[in-house]
C-alpha cells in the first residue's frame, strides 16, 4: 500500500505537468516582476538598477500608504461585513427553510456575471444625476440624502467597496453552506434534545464545527480584497483625489500612465508578499485556537 502511494515515478508524472505550466506562466512572471521592481525603468530600453529605492519610495509616499490603508480597510470590510452576512445566509439555508435550493442557486448568480456588466450596473445605480439610488431616495422622501456617491471623498471609498462585497456574498455563502450541511445530523439532534435554541446551536455547535471552511473563506476573501482591482478601477479609477486608490489600481496607473515600470512592479511584489503574510497569519491563528 505505502509503496504504491510513494511511487516516485507516479508522483512525478502526476505533479510535474502542473508544476511546469505553473512555473512558466506564473512563477517566471513573478520572478521577472521582482527583478523589474529593482529597476528605474520606463518600459522600453534599458533600465537602471537602483536596488530597493522603489520600495523605499513606496513606503514613504503618502499616496501609496493611503492605497495600502484602503486595501486593509477593504479586507476588514470583507471579513467583518461580507463574511458575517454570508454566514448568516448559509446558516439560515442550511437549517432547511422552504425554497432552500432556489435561494442557494439565486444567491450565487452575481458571481457568474462578468465584471463588465456589474460595473455598468453599479455606475448606473450610483449616478448622481439619474442613478437608481438617488431616484429611490427621492421617491421615498429622503431626497436630502441624495448625493454624488462616487464623486465625493466622504462616500466614494465605501461606495466603491460595496459592489465587490455584494458580488461575492453568494460565493462565500455557498462554501459555508456546504460546510454547515456536512456536519453530522446527529450532533444537531443531540443539541436539540438538550433544549438548545437555534441561535445557541449555531454559536456553540455549528460555527465551531465549520472552522475549516471559515478559514478557507477568510483566506479567499482576504486575498480577494488585497488584490481588488476591476470594480474599483471602472467605478472610480482611484479618484476622487486618490481616496479610493488601492495598491493594484495604483500599480496599473504607475505602469501604464506614468511609464514607471519598476515602481509599478514593486506594488505587485508588495501585493504578493502581503497576501502571503496574511494567509500564513490566518493559518497560524486557526492552528493556535
Amino acid at each position, binding site marked *: *500500500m505505502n509503496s*504504491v502511494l*510513494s511511487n*516516485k515515478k*507516479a*508522483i512525478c*508524472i*502526476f*505533479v510535474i*505537468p*502542473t508544476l511546469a*505550466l505553473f512555473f*512558466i*506562466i*506564473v512563477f*517566471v512572471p*513573478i520572478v*521577472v*516582476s521582482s527583478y523589474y521592481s529593482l529597476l528605474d525603468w520606463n518600459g522600453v530600453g534599458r533600465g537602471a538598477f537602483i536596488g530597493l529605492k522603489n520600495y523605499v519610495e513606496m513606503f514613504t509616499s503618502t499616496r501609496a500608504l493611503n492605497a495600502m490603508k484602503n486595501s486593509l480597510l477593504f479586507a476588514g470590510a470583507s471579513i467583518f461585513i461580507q463574511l458575517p452576512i454570508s454566514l448568516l445566509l448559509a446558516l439560515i439555508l442550511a437549517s*432547511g427553510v*422552504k*425554497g432552500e*435550493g*432556489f*435561494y*442557494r*442557486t439565486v*444567491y450565487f448568480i*452575481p*458571481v*457568474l*456575471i*462578468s465584471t*463588465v*456588466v456589474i460595473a*455598468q*450596473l453599479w455606475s448606473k445605480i450610483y449616478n448622481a444625476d*439619474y*442613478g*437608481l439610488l438617488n431616484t429611490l431616495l427621492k421617491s421615498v422622501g429622503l431626497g436630502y440624502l441624495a448625493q454624488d456617491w462616487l464623486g465625493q471623498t466622504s462616500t466614494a471609498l465605501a461606495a466603491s467597496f460595496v459592489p465587490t462585497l455584494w458580488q461575492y456574498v453568494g460565493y462565500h455563502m*455557498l*462554501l459555508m*453552506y*456546504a*460546510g454547515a*450541511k*456536512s456536519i453530522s445530523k446527529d450532533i444537531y439532534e443531540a443539541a436539540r434534545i438538550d433544549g438548545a435554541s*437555534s441561535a445557541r446551536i449555531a454559536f456553540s455547535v455549528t460555527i465551531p464545527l465549520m*472552522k475549516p*471552511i471559515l478559514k*478557507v473563506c477568510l483566506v479567499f476573501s482576504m486575498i480577494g480584497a488585497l*488584490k481588488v*482591482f476591476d470594480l474599483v478601477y471602472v467605478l472610480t479609477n482611484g479618484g476622487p483625489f486618490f481616496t479610493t486608490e488601492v495598491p493594484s489600481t495604483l*500599480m496599473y496607473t504607475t*505602469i501604464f500612465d506614468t511609464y514607471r515600470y519598476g515602481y509599478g*512592479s514593486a*506594488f*505587485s511584489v508588495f*501585493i*504578493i508578499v502581503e497576501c502571503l503574510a496574511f494567509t500564513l497569519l490566518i493559518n497560524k491563528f486557526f492552528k493556535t485556537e
Partner: protein
Amino acid sequence: MDTTKRASGSVGKVLLQIFLIFVAVTQIYPLIWLVFFSLKDNSEIFSGNVAGLPSTFRWQNYAVALNQGNVIKFFLNSAFVTTVTIVLVLFLSSMAAYAITRMNWKLSKFTMTLILVGMMVPIHAALLPLFMVLKNLKLLNTYASLILPYSAFALPMAVFILGSFFKGIPLELEEAAVIDGCGIYRTYFYIIVPQIRSALATVAIFTYLSSWNELMFAVTFINNQSYQTLTVGMMSMVGTYITQWGVIGAGLMVATIPTIIIYLLCSSQVQESLIAGAVKG
C-alpha cells in the same frame, strides 16, 4: 430535523422568507436589469428610466449585436478556448491534487503552498513578463496564448478544491484497489477519479467563469481577429456603440446567457459536490 423550528410560530417563518426574498431580489436584480437595459434605447436609459421595464421592447438591439461582424466566430473561439482550458485544468489539477494530498513525499506541503501563491498574483503586473514568455515560446496570436495562462491561473483554486476533496475519501478505497492488484495509475483513473466527479464539476464551473469572462489577456495576447474571444468582441462593442447603449446591453446579454445556462445545468452538481466534499481546508 427542524421540527422544533416549524413549531416556533409562522410569523417568524414569514419574516424569514421576506428577508430571504429581499436578498434574492438584490442578487438577481442585475440580471433583470441587464435584460431590460438590452431592450431600451438611449433616451429611455438617460431620461430616468434606468431601472424599470422598457416602454417598448427593442429586439432590434439584439439583431444589431448579433450582426456585429464575427459574433459566431468569436463565440466559437471563446467556447474552444474555455473548453480546452477546462479539460486541461481538470486533468492537471486532479492529478497534482491527488499526488499532493494522498501520496507520500517530502515536498508535498511545500508544493501546495507554492501553487497557492498563484492565487495571489495581481495579473496586471504579470502582463508584460507573461507577454515576453509567450513571445519567446512563439505562442502569441494562438489559442495557446490564452489557454496556457487561463489554465495556469486557474490551477491554484482547482488544486485547492480538489485537494480538500481528496482528503475526505477514505483510504480503504486505495487499499482495496491495491489488494486487487491495481497499480497506482489504474487505482487513480478507475477508482479515484469516479469518486470526485461532482468536485470536478465545481472546478469546471470556476474555471469556466475565469476564462470565459477574462479580458486583459485576451486583448493583449491576440491581434488576429480569427482568434479573438467573445468578451473582447463585446467589449469592443462597448467602445463602438457609444450612442446606442441598448445594443451594448444586448451584446453583454449574448455573452452572459451561456454562463447562466451552464450554471443552471451544473448548479446541482456543483452544490452537491461542495456539500459532499465540504472543503476541509
